[in-house]
């Protein structure tokens, strides 16, 4: 193995160190007067791009029905076991529907695998990042909280299609 020289040869001025300290100090001083990046949340809200993976939601068609057929693939692929699905039978053309669809938001790790595996494009990652609950029970989101009109999820769905 070739011997690697670890240090640069420093000039005398650099070895005295003080000019370098002054350089460093002036850099931080300059930064103190630069514009700040901090967003004043919650007065200002962050609007995520389409690639953002927020809380997973179920797509609700315009007729009010869910796309989900309760195949359980999301529950199977979920590495954190956050999803629980109970299928039921309906008279609709797709004879299977989720009688119960629950995501435990304490378990969810926002990996997006459920969205990736879904054969029906029925579960997608929304832009919702404001998740707060005051009990373990509240953290389990049922169909009432998960169903989101398809119109609100349009840009995420387009984003997904562009990468398929």
């Amino acid at each position: 193995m070739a011997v690697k020289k670890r240090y640069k040869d420093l000039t005398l001025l650099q070895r005295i160190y003080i000019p370098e300290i002054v350089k460093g100090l002036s850099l931080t001083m300059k930064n103190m007067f630069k514009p700040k990046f901090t967003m004043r949340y919650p007065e200002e809200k962050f609007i995520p791009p389409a690639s953002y993976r927020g809380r997973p939601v179920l797509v609700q068609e315009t007729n009010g029905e869910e796309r989900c057929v309760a195949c359980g693939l999301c529950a199977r692929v979920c590495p954190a076991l956050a999803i629980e699905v109970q299928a039921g039978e309906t008279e609709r053309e797709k004879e299977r529907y989720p009688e119960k669809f629950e995501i435990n938001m304490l378990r969810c790790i926002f990996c997006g695998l459920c969205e990736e595996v879904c054969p029906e494009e029925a579960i997608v990652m929304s832009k919702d990042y404001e998740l707060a609950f005051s009990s373990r029970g509240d953290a389990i989101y049922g169909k009432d909280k998960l169903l989101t009109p398809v119109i609100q999820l349009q840009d995420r769905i387009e984003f997904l299609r562009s990468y398929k």
Partner: protein
Amino acid sequence: MPKFVLDGKEIEFKQGQTIIQAAKDNGITIPHFCWHESLSVSGNCRVCLVEVEKMPKLVIACATIASDGMVVHSASEKALSARNAVMEFLLINHPLDCPICDEAGECKLQDYAYSHSVGESRFVEEKTHKDKRVPLGPYIMFDGDRCISCSRCIRFCDEIAKEPELTFVKRGDRVTIVTFPGEELDNPYSMNVVDICPVGALTNRDFRFKARVWDMSANNTICQGCARGCNIELWVRNNEVLRITPRQNDRVNSFWMCDHGRLETFKFINAKDRVDGPYVRREGSLQKTSWDEALADAAKELKSSRFNRNEIAFIGSPYATLEDNYVFAKFAAAVFGSKNIDFMRHSDPSFGDDILRREDITPNSLGAEAVGIRPGQTGLNFDGIINGIKEGKIKALYILEDDIVSADTALEEVLAKLDLLIVHATNFNKTAVLADIVLPAATYAEKNGTIVNFQGRVQRIKPAVSTVELDRAMDSMSMSRLDKFGSIYDRWNQGHKYDARSSWKILAALSSVLGNKMKFNLAEDVFNEISRSVQAFSGLDYDSIGEHGVQSKLQPLEKIEKA
């Protein structure tokens, strides 16, 4: 023995065997849909095409008789491309609705599409549409789109159930399956077609959409429906039994089981009327209490001065395990010196047939008698006990896991005459509600044990559902992924656990309270004592019984009757 070469490996076969059967006997599986070991050969799925040297074309392994010196290639380039082509054809009109289909996860078509198909279809036209959701019978739903016309279900009805009910109609891509006019798929074995259907065309109406197969755990055990003792698997999710499927055992049930066993022998496990914790009658009504109190009460009552030991009778159970009955007999003899012990025979001539179902609708009558549930020389038999109660000679009765009142409603008045009635029961049935003390017994899905079928074959039952004192992780039950990783905060892990115990455990505890210690820690300890003390079971243990049971020296009942 003649031999032929399959994929470079020389295998032996019996004269007249097909290639696929010979391969299977040697542990090699040639892909197949329509072929089934115990059905006739139909040869219409074409997926078992293999290349045989010196034959001009590929042949189907299921219909080609093996001959000495044959050289067969099941994975040659030609065979593989043929298989791919067949798979593409089969998938042309298949709807690929696996997300909706219940068969997903145990579907042969799905498996082969992964392992033997190129994964892409060149078919761009519209798929054919057939009738979906057709109820072929009370228990079976048919989906025409998914059917690949293998004819297994038709052949099953013709050959095994012996009630031809199904047939193909139409031709070409319009072919579909219907019942004969005026017929329904309602033979006593109809639900086996769900198991043998290689796709999701035939589904179990009782189990439909209840759970994904990969979410359940499966435990090997024995059906309790009749004296046949079909080998089965119990499928459990969230501590609830959801379905039963048969398990192959050529000496008992081959691949099959009846619809009664499949549907009626598990629902009581999670029924609302389960006995959950011990109950003692106080001020006229049964009230829940603790185990310690219930056992102390039972001991006090049994030893009370209201009756002497000849006035106590014991009724064992052909529904309970060998272990339970053995400890029951030992309890009666050692603690009370009682000879009044017998069990009630349950027989239903209309139930039996010459396929699998038996007239004796209890799973363990042979075993119960063998381990000592029979009257002593001067003791009373079952009818004697009942008469004794009527005449006031028997004042206390101890019943083990048998609902004798439902079997004979006239007994309700008879039992009312008793001073003391103690019952081990799984559910609040007609007998249990009459009792003074009800001790909750574990069901067959919640305990270890052995039962003896009508052939004298000893078979193991194993727990599949956990109770308060039985833990899934500790007690060698099979565990699904959800069981393994669930926490107490997960809703899928909050299934109810009943406070019930194996009868032998309850009896051993009660015996200790009465001053007669029985040293049994496990069901296996009880069985080991049985094998030492009962000649018919000598030399047997849980290991030798294994998954498929073992023949004991017991004579089948019929043979005794004939002799």
